[in-house]
């Protein structure tokens, strides 16, 4: 195992941490309009109130780590997906504004407008991230100079849109489970219904995307053929998805949440095994692909960063856990709430 592989894994860990954490708060956002009364919507927003900001820090750090470990990937993808990234930034900020603004005026219209803004921007963020993953699997046109030669329209191909919708479904399911943990009474019963529906929605998307990948991008399976043991990860993914309705049925919401977190993690591991050692596949000219070797920083930098990460990560994980523990339990609206 060399440093390049370690950093491939570490960036995977950061992005997985981001997907699990921001995944539930984007999911809560995507489901937000299903809550009917103002009180319910305040519960919905405040369920993520203390944590959504911290969750986004994982994205900041993931982006920073990508810049640092694989500068060519960062440069090519960010400049190549220019319009997509600018839209992403726009909705990320717009969503934060919506959260802050919403409960500041009593007017019903005011609140409804920001509710819609919050929900729509959450969906667009999830969709854009899925589209990015879809394009990494499908490959994008790169030149010998590592630059992107495609168009924004080209990124919106059917396969990538399908991955995008699947991501929205996954986050909706994840968010619904989170909301079950955070609500009580009649609202909680309704949210349980959402969990069932989103599980069905996600399962349909998941099966479709899997079929599409196997049919159109069979090279994603190369490592699984080479090392059949990897198939266990696919089996685990199915088991952890199947476990979610079971835990919900038994009334063990936290375990259901762990199960959906595991699902997100396992799906990203499947994705990572599929693309390895490429970070960005060049399609049609495979030889121009950016790999963990030709796009990486020097060994010395990767080593320095590894030392930083080894010292820092235990702190990051422990205070993430501490903070989520302090805010566990049902949502209470008080004077510090949104």
């Amino acid at each position: 195992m060399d440093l390049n592989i370690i950093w491939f894994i570490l960036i995977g860990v950061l992005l997985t941490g981001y997907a699990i954490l921001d995944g539930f708060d984007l999911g809560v956002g995507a489901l937000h309009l299903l809550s009917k009364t103002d009180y319910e919507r305040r519960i919905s927003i405040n369920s993520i109130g203390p944590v959504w900001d911290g969750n986004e820090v994982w994205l900041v750090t993931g982006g920073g780590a990508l810049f640092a470990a694989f500068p060519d990937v960062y440069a090519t993808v960010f400049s190549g997906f220019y319009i997509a990234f600018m839209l992403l930034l726009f909705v990320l900020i717009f969503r934060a504004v919506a959260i802050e603004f919403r409960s500041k005026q009593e007017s019903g219209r005011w609140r409804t407008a920001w509710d819609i803004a919050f929900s729509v921007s959450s969906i667009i963020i999830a969709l854009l991230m899925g589209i990015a993953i879809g394009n990494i699997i499908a490959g994008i046109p790169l030149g010998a100079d590592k630059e992107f030669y495609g168009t924004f329209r080209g990124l919106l191909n059917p396969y990538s849109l399908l991955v995008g919708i699947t991501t929205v479904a996954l986050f909706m399911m994840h968010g619904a489970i989170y909301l079950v943990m955070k609500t009580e009474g009649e609202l909680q019963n309704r949210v349980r219904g959402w969990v069932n529906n989103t599980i069905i929605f996600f399962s349909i998307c998941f099966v479709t995307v899997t079929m599409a990948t196997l049919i159109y991008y069979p090279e994603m399976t190369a490592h699984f053929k080479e090392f059949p043991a990897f198939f266990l990860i696919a089996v685990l993914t199915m088991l952890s998805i199947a476990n979610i309705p079971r835990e919900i049925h038994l009334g063990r919401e936290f375990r259901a949440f762990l199960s959906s977190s595991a699902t997100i993690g396992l799906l990203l591991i499947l994705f990572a095994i599929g693309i390895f050692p490429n970070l960005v596949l060049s399609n049609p000219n495979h030889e121009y692909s950016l790999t963990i070797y030709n796009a990486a920083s020097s060994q010395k930098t990767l080593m320095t960063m590894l030392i930083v990460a080894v010292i820092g990560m235990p702190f990051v994980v422990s205070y993430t856990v501490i903070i989520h523990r302090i805010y566990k339990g049902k949502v209470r609206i008080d004077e510090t709430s949104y």
Partner: protein
Amino acid sequence: MDTELLSRIQFAFTIAFHYIYPPISIGLGVLLVIMEGMFLKTGNKIYENITRFWIKIFALVFAMGVATGIVMEFEFGTNWATYSRFVGDVFGSALAAEGVFAFFLESGFLAILVFGWNRVSPKMHFFSTIMVSLGSMLSAVWIVVANSWQQTPAGYHIINNGGFLRAEITDFWAMVFNPSSIDRLMHTLSGAWLTGAFLVLSVSAYYILKNRHHDFAIKSIKIALSLAVFASLFQLFTGHRSAAGISMNQPAKLAAFEGHYNTSPAPLYLFGWVNDKEQKVNFGIAIPGMLSYLIHGDTQKPVKGLNEFSPEDRPPVNLVFQSYHLMVATGMALIGISILSLLLLRKGALFRSTLMLKVLVISVLLPQFANQLGWISAEVGRQPWIVYNLLRTKDALSKSVTSGEVIFSLVLFTLIYALLFVLFIFLLDRKIKHGPDDTADADAVYSEHKAIFQK
């Protein structure tokens, strides 16, 4: 317009907007530690009210900093891809350290600061305040280190990476402690302390003028004024050290600061207007030999002039001259205001002097001006280089981005930042008008209720 100019406008606009907020967080963070420390030490409820109030403001400012900060991080890749390829290896370690140590520390503990009053012990809360303050300063450390490396590169070599040149790190600590990082870090931090201190001074002076929250305002002013006096004087020292460093490391920048064209003993201008064609400073008042004296300790020693550099290696002179001189003037004004306020306070006259209080209310803008002007001096003064003497700004762009795309994003940023700024002012105004919650009152109401129930 071409992509280069548009990208530069976009970067300047987004960084200037971003840089309104982090200095407030850094300065306010230090003050929060003092305020909450005073509460724990004295047990006086008023300090708790003070801390609670300023934490609310801090949280708002911090959220703005995060939202606009993500943009900065993405923009290196989106608009300056060639630059990112060139510096990625060097900035890698600094950015990783910033993300892991600073961002997580700050945002994680901030949740406890804001939402945790009733959920953790007072000591744990105080600890969180210290961590947030530390986190905000650490993020300044790493970003200033990275920026200083662009000014004075060190600890690297240039290699050919598959046909592309890039800088690779050879000595991590030489990169961190490059010739300008310590001076620039101190200068940036004390600018940030001033920004936080003057925000507290301004709001508190406003309360006194409105005859509200008297006790709250007086105690806030005393704390903030101590920091303001210290930081404004410290700024003089760090500013001098920075200028001395620039004279050695970036002589073209220093020459532009003073509009100094021919190598000769140099005067120090108080103000003026540079005529670049005729190579002279018009309408200026200068102290002869003073620049030479400040740099070399001798009024007769020559200072390198702009004509030592070929025209394509010179920064735009008048813009740098003006921003630099306005920054210095603002810094001097801040020293004057701080010391005058302190003298009035010691004579017991500050809270009766309506004029001085009004000056304090509007002075909140001065450190903001100085911060922006300082960055313009530093960054425009480095031009035409993006990495000094290694990579030109015009060669650092993204090759796959068109001018139409940059126009699109510039419009998006203008819209969302306008919205964001309206939101910020609206919320800030609301919180200030609402003022601190008086927990002493709340306690009184509570015990009254308890008495009724017990009957």
